[in-house]
């Protein structure tokens, strides 16, 4: 228990103390320098901890991965193989299937989370129990992927037709006399992929809703009132005033959701592991890496994922610049 006490002390007192001491000491050290040098050195001292950690945990592995994607499988003596790993990805069925699924994720996950988030934010703004409603819809985000997987196993549970259904959805379908559906084992029409997307929509709509709702509350109510007095109906108020004002917020939320959709991994991994045509890029990468130990291919898959996100980053940068010019 002694070591626990020591760790606790380290955690509660030590960690913040070190961080505050760092910034205080650097200021001390650069004070003797001239004003011009201070101005040049100080910003770097402030961002160096962040840069070092980012460089180590994100940039270094990325560079390694890009190099590795052009090499063969062997871990001990990797050999340069050019674009072979990429060729493999774009010519095998699983790779193409994963790409198709990720497009479905991008369109439907992003569409539903942002769309529902917007609708719910507007609706709950008009009821007295707004806080309760928002809490219920935000709650799934506080649940771990492992727990969410368990929750939806109970929802999607499937028993052979004729036996008692214990899954909530099949129980409901049974009430109206429709046969049980094997939600997570149906490759046809990629039903299982949509079943997985529904889970993530359940988890992330609250996120979109909270942010959109915050922006909504930021709109000056007098502006809306003025429009109403001038004879605009609710739809016109929404279409002509609320929607344009929410524009930047919706853009940021959409970007966030697109990145989340492209990086989708946990829920696929825990519920189907890519079977029944539910494969996604991130899961394919993990499979190549940990199941088949083919690091060359895994790296190539990761690079494809990175490349897919570049256009979205480009859009984000433009947004950022636009915002910067307003400030």
């Amino acid at each position: 228990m002694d070591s626990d006490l020591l760790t606790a002390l380290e955690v509660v007192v030590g960690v913040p103390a070190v961080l505050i001491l760092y910034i205080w000491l650097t200021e001390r050290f650069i004070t003797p320098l001239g004003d011009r040098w201070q101005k040049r050195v100080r910003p770097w001292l402030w961002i160096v901890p962040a840069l070092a950690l980012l460089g180590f945990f994100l940039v270094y592995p990325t560079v390694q991965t890009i190099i590795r994607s052009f090499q063969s499988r062997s871990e001990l003596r990797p050999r340069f193989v050019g674009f072979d790993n990429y060729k493999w990805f774009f010519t095998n069925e699983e790779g193409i299937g994963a790409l198709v699924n990720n497009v479905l994720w991008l369109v439907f996950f992003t569409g539903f989370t942002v769309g529902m988030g917007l609708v719910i934010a507007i609706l709950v703004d008009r009821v007295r129990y707004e806080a309760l409603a928002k809490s219920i819809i935000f709650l799934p985000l506080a649940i771990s992927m492992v727990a969410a997987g368990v929750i939806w196993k109970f929802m999607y549970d499937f028993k052979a037709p004729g036996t008692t259904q214990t899954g909530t959805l099949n129980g409901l379908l049974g009430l109206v006399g429709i046969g049980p559906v094997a939600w997570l084992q149906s490759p046809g029409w990629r039903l299982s992929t949509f079943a997985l997307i529904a889970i993530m929509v359940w988890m992330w709509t609250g996120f979109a809703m909270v942010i959109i709702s915050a922006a909504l509350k930021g709109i000056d109510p007098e502006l809306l009132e003025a429009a109403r007095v001038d004879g605009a109906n609710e739809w016109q108020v929404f279409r002509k005033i609320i929607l344009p004002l929410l524009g930047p917020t919706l853009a940021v939320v959409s970007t966030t959701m697109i990145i989340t959709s492209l990086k989708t991994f946990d829920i696929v991994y825990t519920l189907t592991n890519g079977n029944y045509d539910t494969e996604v890029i991130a899961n394919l990468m993990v499979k190549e890496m940990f199941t088949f130990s083919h690091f060359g291919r895994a790296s190539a898959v990761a690079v494809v994922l990175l490349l897919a996100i570049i256009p979205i980053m480009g859009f984000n940068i433009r947004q950022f610049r636009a915002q910067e010019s307003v400030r």
Partner: protein
Amino acid sequence: MTVVAAPVPQATEKPKGERRTPRGRRALVLHLVVVVLMLIWAIPTVGLLVSSFRPADELSTSGWWTAFAPPYHFTLENYSDVLNQAGMGQAFVNSLFIAIPATIIPLFVAGFAAYAFSWMEFPGRDVLFVVIVGLLVVPLQMTLIPILKLFADWGLTGQFLSVWLAHTGYGLPFAVYLLRNFMGSLPRSVFESASLDGANHVTAFFRIALPMSVPAFAALAIFQFLFVWNDLLVALIYIGLSNSDNLPMTATMANLVNSLGGGWYLLGAAAFISMALPLAVFFGLQRYFVRGIVGGAVKG
């Protein structure tokens, strides 16, 4: 993690009673829609909650909704089974030891960086910031092997420090983005007058930027805490492979389910025990969380 920091329009606290509550039939439709949505969102969780109180043998033979009809079979056995597992208490403590510093460190590190990006001039500032935000897209799974190799060489594997630093690294792009957007929108005049009064940057950071950005820090703290508390993968790779004594609760839960094979009836109880603290944190800080995003735009 992902991006929040939306450029939110001017925030004005809406006085109570100004809510536009429709009346009559439209009101009925509105309430109906909202209540149905709340039900849809709550049912999955409620189903599991009810299941977690049901006896194991009934779980696999009947749906959870049948528990509300006689005979009312409820039991606390699942919970006591989970809690009596060896090492559960230690795992809870470990989870705290991991999650608290892994939340505090990125707050400070990102706070310093965000301050520099907002209120200091230096060459390459914008490019650097864009690169940091761009790192949001790096898939976490990709980084595990190269980092693990280095950690093993340095003898860091199995130690709390390794996951503190790892979660800081993974959380930073989001944290810097969120805080920079918030701090950057604070009124310039406040910092200028502080500087005239002779305050240096350290003072300005701790006395002005930090207190004025409390909502943003709180929002970030919630996200980072939830992310770390719910994480399984990072802890498993950097700690689990060499020192299973330091593993967090998510790992113990996953273990419990795997090793017992038929232990899936414990899943519900296990899931709720692991959810308890994050939910408490969420409801406790929720007020700040919403304000963190709303208040972000006191544009100067």
